């Protein structure tokens, strides 16, 4: 048994040091492409760290968003930067005087030490709200505590988070987007690749959504896997038709938030409480919310990757 403890300890130590080192190199790299690759590696190790911290839900989200889609988004952003700016790499940050650097180092290490001490003295085990969550799990309509918190106990926060996603799209669109890049023709291998993989992605998303009711998974993870399928489609040269880019797209982007608001109004009218689901209906309502939120999240992520405003005439 002792061997295992030592091995686990060594694993965690290497993981922690590796994360710190990667974070530092990522911030510090003047080559943006190198920074992105380092960031992707950081996401991979971070997911492992969540696994070690016994938080498989976050590991799943990190795998889907942190290591997976963010990498693709950053690479697409880098490609756009290259088309709009000259190819020179950004200069090093101004170094500042020795005095400034020294002051910064003292300030940062001081705060880091203080923070480290504050974390060090934290009680190692506090139950927090987990007792209350467990006690109410039966009436929440979900068997996975994380899902119960996200969609029932704190569903109001999730409703606002759906608006955050929508705002991200609005922000990009309001800038008018950039002229579409001349796409590279998709080669036959890529075509076959996406033809085969996209159904697998959809199946995986459906599986994650379904399993979310009683195990780690759910709308955010399923949405990002589905969004990745959209990204793959876009990469193999598929473009949504002009008609699809009008109100059907806007409806898909908002359907998650709309469902939350409609359910909110209904519960306010019938239960006098915002998002208070009747116990008998709670399970069904959560499934409904999760499925439609999955659609919105997936479309949002794919649209973020596309990065263009829906109306080509609106370009500034």
């Amino acid at each position, binding site marked *: 048994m002792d061997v295992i403890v030592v091995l686990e300890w060594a694993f965690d130590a290497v993981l922690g040091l590796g994360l710190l080192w990667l974070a530092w190199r990522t911030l510090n790299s003047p080559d943006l492409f190198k920074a992105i690759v380092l960031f992707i590696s950081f996401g991979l190790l971070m997911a492992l760290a969540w696994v070690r911290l016994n938080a498989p839900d976050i590991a799943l989200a990190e795998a889907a968003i942190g290591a997976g889609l963010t990498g693709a988004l950053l690479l697409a952003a880098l490609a756009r930067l290259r088309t709009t700016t000259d190819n020179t790499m950004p200069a090093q940050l101004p170094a500042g005087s020795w005095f400034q650097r020294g002051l910064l180092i003292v300030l940062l290490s001081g705060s880091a030490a203080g923070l480290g001490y*504050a974390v060090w003295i934290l009680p190692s085990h506090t139950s927090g709200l987990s007792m209350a969550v467990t006690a109410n799990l039966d009436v929440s309509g979900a068997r996975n505590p994380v899902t119960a918190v996200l969609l029932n106990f704190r569903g109001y926060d999730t409703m606002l988070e759906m608006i955050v996603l*929508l705002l991200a799209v609005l922000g990009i669109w309001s800038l008018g987007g950039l002229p579409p890049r001349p796409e590279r023709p998709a080669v036959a291998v890529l075509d076959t690749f996406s033809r085969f993989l996209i159904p697998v992605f959809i199946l995986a998303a459906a599986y994650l959504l379904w399993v979310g009711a009683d195990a780690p998974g759910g709308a955010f993870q399923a949405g990002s896997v589905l969004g990745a399928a959209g990204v793959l489609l876009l990469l193999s040269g598929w473009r949504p038709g002009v008609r699809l880019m009008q109100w059907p797209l806007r409806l898909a982007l908002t359907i998650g938030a709309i469902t939350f608001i409609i359910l909110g109004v209904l519960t306010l009218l019938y239960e006098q409480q915002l998002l208070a689901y009747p116990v008998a209906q709670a399970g069904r309502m959560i499934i409904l919310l999760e499925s439609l939120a999955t659609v919105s999240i997936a479309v949002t992520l794919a649209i973020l990757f596309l990065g263009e405003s829906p109306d080509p005439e609106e370009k500034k």
Partner: protein
Amino acid sequence: MEAILANADWGVIVILLPLTGGIVCFLWPAVSKTAGLITVAAVVLAVAGLGRQIMEHGAYRHTVGGWGAPLGIDLFADGLSLFMLIMTALVGLGISCYAKSYFNPRDAVWFWPVWLFLLAALNALFLAADIFNLYVTLELTGLAAVTLTALTGRIDALSSAMRYLLAMLAGSLAYLLGVALLYHDSGSVDIATLAQRIEPNATVWAALGLMSAGLALKTALFPLSFWLPPAHASAPAPVSALLSALVVKASFYILLRLWLELFADFAEGVSTLLGLLGAAAILWGSLQALRQTRIKLLVAYSTVAQIGYLFLVYPLASASSGLAAGIAAYLAFSHALAKSAMFLAAGNLMRFGGHDRIADLDRAVQRLPLTVSAFALAGVSIMGLPPSGGFTGKWLLLDAAMSQGRWDLAAVMIIGGLLAAGYIFKVLGYAFMQAKEPHDARAVPAGMEWAALLLAVGSILLGLMASEIFALIHPDLVANAGGAVERVWTA
């Protein structure tokens, strides 16, 4: 009907209305202007409904999802929250009327949904009673504000929006780390529950430091105000008004709330620090404002200075914390009215002359009398001359400082007022003069002039209603503040 109106859950409606309005604007861009204006007007009515309920039945509480804190999320509104909601609704209405004529159709399509989401986020923030929910609303507010800043898509707007975004994210993350520490320490994110459990130890101190630093960054407290002037100066005029009048107040409100409920008892040293930074902000911001050659930058630096006044309440709070919070909220309101009027007036001047160079204002007073009156009236409140809201607020603050023997703070306030007079008269002076080279001017829609003037008049009227307002912020305070307010008027 009467019963329905009296029993309706106005707090929830105040949040759901702008959310729905924003989604409608997004789905049907063609109707966004109409839908936007109607929504903002409806929010004003809903806030009035909530106000009536609070006056009749006391503080408002709604248990979202029926779970109740600490497991679920509670919405909570007392006089202070109500006051901030009223501020947001009224200033928001004025700015919306202005924005109706300001934006071209292409930008309007994006302005309205984002502004309505911002309104929803602000309302949700003022109604929150849970530090994690506050984080979510803070994030929503920041993201909407950044989007609005970048709306014109010009290079300077984009680069200052980027800087703004990074500052906002750094602020939110620092706040979130504080939330995590507090949750781990006390096992709750509900403010009321935390208030019972919190005890000063290293973890709570770290949380206090992180949250205060993050919120001070978001409120642009000197020297963390580096992001504010470029962002506020390069945004479209209605957006600058929203940012300066409402968005910075949101993070300030959270800080005030945390202080009142959680930290006031044991963080006196930090209070002193916040007060010192506030005093530095007053002096530095005013001097910078005096040096500017462009109106929008001048107004933006003036915001940095006026935020300083808000932070002076912390060192003065120890003696009478409730009253100090009331003064801070009152100052925030009068600043919101005055500063939005100023930014809108600056927008009119820019529309009129195509530039905002102070030296080339070229007899604006003859050609845009309403706009210059708005600027002057708002200036009266910023300088703190009677009978404006700015005067009453600053007088109460001065009163508190002198009664506690803080002559240093009192001196800073007086110097700040003199400097403010300097930069406002600088603008007004040039508005009367003829420029060396006269240039052609463009027409400014009447709605834009009147919106600016009405907000400025509001900042003066606020001074005349001080007693009623203090009664609203905190019923218990009337006894305290009543005497002070009376002294203001007999003085």
